[in-house]
């Protein structure tokens, strides 16, 4: 972890100071303008309007400062030291009431209260007024894990002139799982966990064999037995004999890197839907050890969200060395959609692994990069569109392909999976 720079330290120091000094920048500016108006025009030129305006501005600032500071002090003392340890297991994207609340201060003029979560990060806090108490409801933006909740409570006036803030720490275990989006099951993964024969998504885990069966939506018309149809008016399809059998052991690993939420979601769905088979071992960056059951595996997914992305080393190599030598096991690696510092390590580990290994790339939508007209670039801030650019995804897939391993793309936004052929059709892989 890099030590904080001088600039960051100064910012943090200034923020700490501004948290306890009620006037904000806006308040300071108002005071300066009001003072100047009062002094130069109110007294200097006997401007009665600016005289009243100047005094009012200063009085407002003083009154708001007193009310804000007083309320903050009162609340700071009134709230219990620790709000009771509560464990929260939540899913990103869904609003969850935490049960935490503070007096609403609805009756108190010129004072408003709100707060935010500092730890874990990327939590949107909403409040609801219930029985004179502001009740907290949170919406996590991404997965993560924290052993304490740090809240920054802010008491300010409705004009933005004064603000007092303080941080409150409550020991709570918060586990945030990634949102599954539209992912439900993952036939592609299921197919990759089968041991032999032609993979078929609808096959039972214990294996299946079929030659002729009733037509089902999605079957190719080429397989329909038209002669039988002419005779019996029943649509039957002929299929090759299938032998579908799951491998007895699968290992899976989640790589933590920027933009890995979709990959984490895919890993979560794979674990919860049981597509990894009966026996599996799961590992993730940021999680010490391996998980062989669902609960610790989900915790591993959540914890991987708290990994510092600056680290270039991936734990995949160590994971494979530890659990990959237990015979012929299939390894599935969930990767983010863009190449990064992790790529070299992971490719080397994939090359060194003797067994079957597939990459599952999780995306949140794919878009084709198009050149934006100059006037649009000039007028509008270029918002990063959701998802990943097709060429970047293609570059990653080519890179992963260079290790001689198969890659599959799973899109969380649409819930669709893309195999090699579909990727080629999209132009994502070469």
């Amino acid at each position, binding site marked *: 972890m890099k030590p904080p720079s001088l600039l960051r330290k100064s910012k943090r120091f200034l923020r700490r100071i501004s948290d306890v000094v009620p006037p*904000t*920048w*806006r308040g300071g*500016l*108002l005071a300066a*303008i009001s003072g100047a*108006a009062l002094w130069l*025009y*109110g*007294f*200097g*030129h*006997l*401007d*009665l*309007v*600016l*005289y*009243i*305006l100047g*005094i*009012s*501005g200063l*009085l*407002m600032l003083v*009154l708001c400062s007193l009310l804000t500071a007083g309320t903050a002090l009162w609340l700071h003392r009134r709230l219990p030291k620790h709000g009771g340890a509560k464990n929260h297991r939540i899913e*990103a*994207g*869904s609003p969850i009431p935490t049960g935490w609340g503070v007096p609403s201060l*609805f*009756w108190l*003029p*010129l004072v*408003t209260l709100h707060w935010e979560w500092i730890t874990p990060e990327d939590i949107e806090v909403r409040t609801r007024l219930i029985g004179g108490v502001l009740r907290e409801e949170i919406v996590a*933006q*991404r997965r993560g894990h924290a052993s304490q909740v740090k809240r920054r409570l802010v008491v300010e006036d*409705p*004009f*933005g*002139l004064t603000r007092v803030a303080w941080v409150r720490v409550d020991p709570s275990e918060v586990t945030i799982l990634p*949102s599954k*989006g*539209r992912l439900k099951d993952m036939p592609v993964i299921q197919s990759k966990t089968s041991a032999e024969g032609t993979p078929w998504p609808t096959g039972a885990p214990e294996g299946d064999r079929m030659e002729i069966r009733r037509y089902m939506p999605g079957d190719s018309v080429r397989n329909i037995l038209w002669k039988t149809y002419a005779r019996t008016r029943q649509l039957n399809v002929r299929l090759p004999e299938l032998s579908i059998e799951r491998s007895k052991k699968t290992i899976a690993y989640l790589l933590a890197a920027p933009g890995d*939420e979709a990959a984490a979601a895919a890993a979560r769905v794979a674990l919860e839907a049981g597509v990894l088979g009966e026996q599996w071992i799961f590992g993730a960056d940021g999680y010490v050890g391996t998980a062989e059951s669902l609960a610790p595996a989900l915790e591993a997914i959540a914890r991987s969200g708290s990994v510092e992305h600056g680290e270039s080393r991936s734990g995949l190599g160590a994971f494979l060395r530890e659990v990959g030598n237990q015979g012929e096991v299939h390894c599935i690696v969930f990767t983010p959609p863009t190449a990064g510092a992790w790529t070299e390590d992971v490719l080397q580990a994939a090359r060194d692994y003797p067994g079957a290994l597939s990459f599952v790339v999780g995306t*949140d939508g794919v878009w084709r990069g198009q050149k934006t007209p100059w006037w649009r670039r*000039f*007028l*509008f*801030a*270029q*918002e990063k569109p*959701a998802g990943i650019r097709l060429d970047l995804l293609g570059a990653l897939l080519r890179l992963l392909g260079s290790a001689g391993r198969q890659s599959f793309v799973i899109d*969380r*936004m649409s819930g669709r999976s893309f195999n090699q052929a579909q990727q080629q059709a999209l132009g994502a892989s070469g």
Partner: protein
Amino acid sequence: MNPNQRNPSPALPGVVSFLRALVLAVAATILCWPLTVTSGVLLAILGAMAGAMAGDMASRTSLRVSGVLSICSILVILGTWTARLMVKSTFIASALGPVVALWMSEAALWFVLIAPTVFLLRFLSARKPVMAIFEVLAVGTALAISLAAHREGMVHRPLTIGDWAWTRGLDPVMLLLVLGAGITLLLASLLVSEDRRRRLPLHFGVLAALALALLLMVRVSGLPQPNPSGLGLTGDPEENKDGSEDPSEGGGGSSSDKKSDEMEDLEFKNEYNSGGQQAPVAVVLLHDDYSPPAGVYYFRQTAFSQYNGRRLVQTTRDDVDRDVVSRFPAKPIRIPEAPEVSDQRMNLKTSMGLLVDHVRPFALDSPAALRPIQNPDPMRFQRAFEALSRVQTIPYEKMIGQLPGNSDWNDEEWDYYTDAPADPRYGELAARLMDLLREEYRDDPLAQALAIKAFLDERGIYSLKSKHADATDPTASFLFGDLTGYCVHFAHAATYMMRSRGIPARVAAGYAIAESARGGGSTVMIRGADAHAWPEIYLENVGWVVIDPAPQQTLDEPSGPPDQRLQSMLGEMMRQKMSDEIDFGDEQAINWSRLWFFALMALGAVLAMGYGVKFYRALVPYFGRPLQRYRVAYRATLDRLAEVGLKRHFGESRESFAQRAGRRAPSFVELTQQHLRWALGSMERGQAGRISNLMVSVESEIRRSTPAWRRVLGFLNPFSWLMAR
């Protein structure tokens, strides 16, 4: 990124956005009203509204600030060019007619000036919270500029406001203060960022109370006062008060300690600050018509007669300058050594209303008596008093032949008033000037003084900037140097030369106002810029006579004539509320009749409010919404029960109370049940009528079970509803 999260689309402007737009439109209207024609004003309003609302919407998009700035600049340039083209092009003017072309040009000009500016302001304010201050600043500036005419004490301006108020008997000052308070609330509305709109009335209620308190405070503490003049005439008299001295003593008996404290007042300065003080500092009502022989009203506040080796300062002696009053009168005081009424001087009463604190009173020369009068308006006037002056009526030419000084003076006093610097040049110059006089006037003190004045009039150059302050003898530096200085230099130079001729002389300070400034009325408005110092000589049987040099050359802009409207308005304000029939001992007595009036008014207002709430709560069940009727009918019944002394105790449930009250009004039991049923949602809509019937039943049951006197008392109690629980 969370897949469930969606980019917020630009929301349509809401109520707050519309109100903000309205505020900006008001500011734009006020700003452009005096600058353009109707079409310009209308399009400016439209532009402000459109700009504000579009700015609000645009702030929620991904528009860049640089892009917005560029577009707004281009729009302003293009629009201004188009607007100019409309009036410059003969084709457009001939096709549409010059009037229409002008209207269109003004409309286009103001639209393209206001709309992009407001758009930019709103856009930046919505994007960056700190930028909202600049929006406030812009609106505040626009509004303040539109009312700026009242600055420097010109409280009757802008005339649209001043005349409107004055013709309705309102005080324009109060109106301006109220406008200031209103603008405060308006500007606060631009800053507000409260999400919960239901709390906005609470916040603004507190702000309104704050503004009201501020107005009351101003009423009590008074209005801001102009900066003190360079001569030190104005200031807080309390600061100069010597604690050991009895303030009721009035003039004459001032201690030497106090006088030495004030010696610094008339200092020579390289740059004299007249303060550009057009602001009125006092109003004087003349009780009789009087034209001063010099054509100038001299209001003397103090005199500098003691030579301290460098300049003249206020005396430290008790036996001289006894006509100078050092304290405001707390009771009628007679000024010693005032000249007698004769064919040279007459009595003239004047009423003084001081708009600004002064260190001591002043009066037309020569004052004979002072007495306090009731302050006609404590918010405006700091102090009011009446002066009886023995004003000079004898023309200057008729004073020729009068002897200098007073025959009653002893040698010490003579020496005192003729003490001058040892520098022989004063005497030599004065002697040379006397040579210019005709033989028969060479020994006449008045003629000699006038000769000195004539020399300074002709050769002196009036300038507020001079370079004599650092000289050992600033007066010599002035008189024998460039002869450039201001009144203090001229007064000292003249006094020294007069004294060198053996004429008792001193420098007086106060205010000098040309008679023409009176405008024929009886009011003389004194402004800060009228502060003046002048020389005086003492003539036997006449007293102190002003000999004021008036240099013909000046390097500074003369201050303009006083505003006649303001002068007469202030005079009216002073005259309206002033009463001659006052008891001098009652200046600070409480006005009980007024106090009673206000107390009764307040009581009436409170009672009216109580009855208003009471009757509203009693009647609202008959016209309230059906869905609310169960609640308001139940409340009205509780009020009625409370009126006759039946109220729910703390901790008592509604049902228990219903049982208890049911002994006197049995229908109340069912009404309570119905109310609870409705409140818990198990009642159908059509049963609202049943509630009303029950309410009427309870009413008649109460009437039957309660004595008439109890009911009357309950009815008369305006706050019986406060007891209902």
